[in-house]
Structures are given as C-alpha cells and as structure tokens.
C-alpha cells in the first residue's frame, strides 16, 4: 500500500521493484526474463527498456493504447524482429540470434492479431502442422509409408482431436480452416499454438471481435488451458474485463516504454495509466 501511495504522490511513476510473479511460481526459475529489451526502426525507437519477468504458470497481461508497441514486443519475443538491444531468456536460455521457428522449438508459441491460419487446409491439418516437431518420421518414411509413418500419423490424428476438444471443435476437423466463422478461427489458432507443446503461450488480442458471452467463455478456457497444460500465458488485450479478470500480473506499455507493472488492482488505480488511456486531467 505504501508503494501505491508513492505512485499517486510522485509525478514520475517508477516501475515497481517487487516481482509480479504469482506466489506459487516464486520458488521456480521464471519462464521468461526480458532485460533492457529494445528495437529501433530506422531511428524510431519502437520499444525501449522493456524489462519483464513471467512466472512458470502465470497469466500475464500486456496492455496499452493503440500503437504502444505491444505486438512489437510479441514480435521481439518470437524473433519476427531481431531486437536492437537487450536479452531475452527463455527458461534461463538466451534466445539471441534464433529464428522464429527455433524459438517455437524452444517453447514459445503464439497467435496473431490478424488471424493467420493455413486457410486452404483442414482444421485437423492445421493442428497437425502444430504437431510437426513432435512427429519424428523422415520424408523417406513418409513417401514410402513405413510403419513409423502409420504409427505416428495415427497418434497425431488422435492428439489433434484431443486438442480440438478443448474448445469443443473436434466435429469441425474435416472443414476447411479458412471457411470457419471468425470466433472458431481464433480458437483454432490457439489450438494450433498449443499443439506445438509450448511452455509460454502468447495470445495477441484473443477476444477481438467477440461478444461478452464469448469473451467470458474464452476467459474460462484460458484459465483452463493454463491449469491443464501448466504453462505460462501472456496476452495482449483491449478488453479490460478479460485482462483484469484473469491476469495475475499486468504490464502497461505506452510509446514503447513500460509505464506500470503490477496486479490488476494496482494498475486500475495508477494515475499514469489513467493518463495514458484517458489523457491528462485538466
């Protein structure tokens, strides 16, 4: 409480020094540690001094006004962009110089703000592509249809249906992914990301375009996914009911800088955050 008072008094709001990792994860190494992370696009600093720690089973929220650099942070974490500065440790391992596909194999999976499915393929194939690195047979076994192929394809088929059942989508397995309704496409993207067996799942605006009841269902499902898979989830979202409802730690970004970190309560009463969203009070 003392710290909160300090925020309200001072003009500059310091980043809270205490970790926002939930208590149950405190004794374990964090899954993600970013320090001094930053990227410049030709002189323009898009993200700067991004420091964050995410616990092993934490649900973390990344919020901020449009253009604050939230998706850029995701792109840095997944190495779609190579950071200009700083380090990203995933489960204690440095991800420097890795490609996006290597990052996925190290344990980060993500969804996209503008849905990116394999539109011409079936729902099941989309999930199976997520299972790609867990299937181990070679091209030759595939072409010659060796026993290894049949065994692993059967396992992949079963696993895909099992994963789809999280969102009750197993009946849609044979449909073309691009022809699904919008909400189902968003859910399929999450299933595909989960199929890669991640330890950290990044969700970029998972509730975009959903109505309140769909959002409520999604909230339940996100918690359920964390509980079943015992993974960390970090999400970008504009729907404050979702963020405040399920995120244990929230990080607020504005103009590429972290302006506040803390629990939902702390963030809601933080004057800098209010200013960033609503403007300065006259």
């Amino acid at each position, binding site marked *: 409480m003392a710290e909160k008072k300090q925020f309200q008094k001072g003009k500059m709001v310091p980043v809270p020094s205490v970790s926002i990792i939930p208590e149950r994860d405190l004794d374990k190494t964090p899954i993600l540690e970013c320090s001094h992370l930053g990227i410049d696009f030709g002189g323009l600093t898009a993200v700067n001094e991004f420091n964050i720690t995410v616990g092993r089973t934490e649900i973390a929220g990344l919020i901020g006004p449009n253009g604050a650099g939230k998706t850029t942070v995701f792109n840095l974490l997944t190495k779609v962009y190579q950071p200009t500065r700083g380090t990203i440790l995933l489960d204690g391992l440095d991800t420097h110089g890795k490609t996006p596909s290597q990052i996925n194999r190290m344990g980060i*999976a993500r969804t996209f703000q503008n849905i*990116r499915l394999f539109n011409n393929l079936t729902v099941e194939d989309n999930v199976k592509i997520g299972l790609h690195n867990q299937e181990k047979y070679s091209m030759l076994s595939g072409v010659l249809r060796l026993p290894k192929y049949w065994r692993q394809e059967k396992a992949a088929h079963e696993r895909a249906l099992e994963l789809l059942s999280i969102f009750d989508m197993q009946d849609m397995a044979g449909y073309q992914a691009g022809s699904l309704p919008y909400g189902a496409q968003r859910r399929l993207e999450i299933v595909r990301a989960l199929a890669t067996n991640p330890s950290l799942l990044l969700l970029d605006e998972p509730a975009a375009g959903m109505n309140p009841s769909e959002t409520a269902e999604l909230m339940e499902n996100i918690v359920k996914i964390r509980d079943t898979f015992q993974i960390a989830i970090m999400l970008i979202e504009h729907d404050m009911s979702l963020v405040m409802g399920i995120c244990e730690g929230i990080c607020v970004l504005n103009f590429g800088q972290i302006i506040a970190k803390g629990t939902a309560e702390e963030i809601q009463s933080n004057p800098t955050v209010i200013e960033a969203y609503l403007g300065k009070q006259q």
Partner: protein
Amino acid sequence: MKKINKKSLNGFINYGIVIAAFAVIQVLLGMGRLSNSLQSLLVPACCYIVMAVSLNLTVGILGELSLGHAGFMSLGAFSGITVSILLQNALPMASARLAVSMAVGAVAGALGGAIVGVPVLRLQGDYLAIVTLAFGQIIKNIIMVLYVGVDETGFHIAASSERFNLGSDGVAIIKGPMGAVGVTKLASFTAGFVLIMITLLVVQNLVNSRSGRAIMALRDNRIAAESVGINVTKYKLMAFVTSAALAGAAGALWGLNYSSTVASKFDFNTSILVLVFVVLGGLGSIRGSIIAAALLYVLPEMLRGLGLDDFRMLIYAIVLILVMLATNNDQLKALVGRVIPKRKKVAANG
C-alpha cells in the same frame, strides 16, 4: 463452412486413371489401332505428365512460381544420355541401362535444384520466378557450348570444340550447339508409365505426410508456419529439389526417346508450356496436371494432321486466353456456372 473430402481416396483414383489409360493404350497397341504418329507421342506425353505433376509440387503445393522447370529436364536429359552411352558395354540390358540413366538424370536434376535452391529460395514471389527463368537460360546456354565424349584414354569434357581433343576412335556424346547425337533409343511407353506411377507415389505420399503439410503451411502462411516451428528453408528446398529430381528423370526419358537432342529444346517456352498445363489443370490438383498435360500435349499435335497447321498455335493462344478469362473472371464464371452447374472446389492459393 466447407468440408474437404479425404485425400487418400483421391490419390487412389489418380493411380487408377493412369493404370486404366495404360491398359487401354496397351490393348490398342496390341490391336494395331494406334497410328505411328500417335505412337510417337506416347513417351513425350509421359514426360510432360511427369513434368506437370512435379512442377505442380513447386507452384501449386509450395506456392512458388518457377519459370525454369525445363532447365532441370535439360540437366536430366544430357546426364542421362551421357550415362547411357558410357554404360553401353558395362550394362548390355537396355531396360537396366534406361533405369540407371533415369536415376542419374534424377540425381542431376536434384543437384541442379539444390544449387539454384539454396541461395535463391530466400527470394520471394516474382523475384524467385525471375531467377528460375535466369537459371533455365544459364543451363541451356552452358550445355550449348559443352562438348562431352569418351575414347580409349577416358572421359573428355570441354567448353569449346578447339579444346575438345577426342581420340579418333572416340565417341562424341554432346557436341555443343548440335546437342547429343547418335543416341541409342532406350525409352519405352512402359518406362514412361512406371515413371508416372513413381512420380504420383512420391508427390501424393509427400503431400499427405508431415513434410507435405509443412510445405503447404509455407504456401498458405509463411509467418504462421515459422511460428509453429517449421524450418522454412528446409521444406522449401525439399519441395524444390524433389520437383527438380522428377523433372530430371523425365528429361532422361525424353533424351533417350530420340536419336538426337538439342539443348534449345528445353528453353523458356518449354518451361512455360508445362506451367500452362499446371495452371489449366488447377494449382495443387495432381489429377488436373495429369489430364491437362496429356490432353494439351496430344490434341495440338493431332491438329497437325488436319491441315490446320498454320492456325494451330494461333488457336492454342486464343483458347488459352479464353480459358483463363472464363475461369478467373467473376462475371464470366457466373455465366458459365449458370450453364453448367459445377461442384464446389477448394480454391487453390496463387
């Protein structure tokens, strides 16, 4: 929502069509019902079918435009011819020599595919298309100055006729702009049939495996594919090299079907011809490629005999434009749809 039917059944239908066509043609041949000119089209038609199916792997399944597919065919043709002549004494059995030559042709095609693929697949879209075009031209150009022969002292290879010092008893295999001459014809319709079946086996089984799914994922959305851990270079290269290897084998079969072959046969126009088969057959549709290649190769050749020789290519051009307009213009498509009710098909990604 659109349901997609099971692909494995589709694959068996394709084998069935090819086997049935082979059986019918064999019966017609046995009854002597096929004219000589039609018989001479059988092996080239097989080559074009293999070319079209293999190019479909690059263009339809991987989603990258290639304008130099004939270049790989050329590599296969000349390496296959060379090997068949070198093995003339060591391997007297014609069918075995043909099989070895085709295998060597496939390896040559694959090597070419890897050489052009490794650096070039980093490029995207039209730029990749231009480089494949350039590569096809380079292969044609190099083979046109190449002299290859064998004599008592061994194997000779030179880049000009002056430097080509073949012994008097030697056999020249490739003679620069004149190409390969004096080739023993080893190709047969049965070999073509077997090559088509192998091609179908490779392409169809690849598509329905984890590697094939990875390749199609790259086509549909590269960024998403990377995000689920797919190695872009590896799978692009896999599709590209497989496609080039099959084209190489088809090239070897082609080369061993004629007593002489020139490099300019495998030019830009041949690459385009095969691309036309693929596009008209439907991107990603293996059956479409087979049927389009067979029909579009054989029909214009048959028009030759009808006194329409002068107008043959003109008709071909007009039909090509009209078909593209009818299948891709929304208004025309609606018009065609009203006349012929059509099954809904999965749109292929360009």
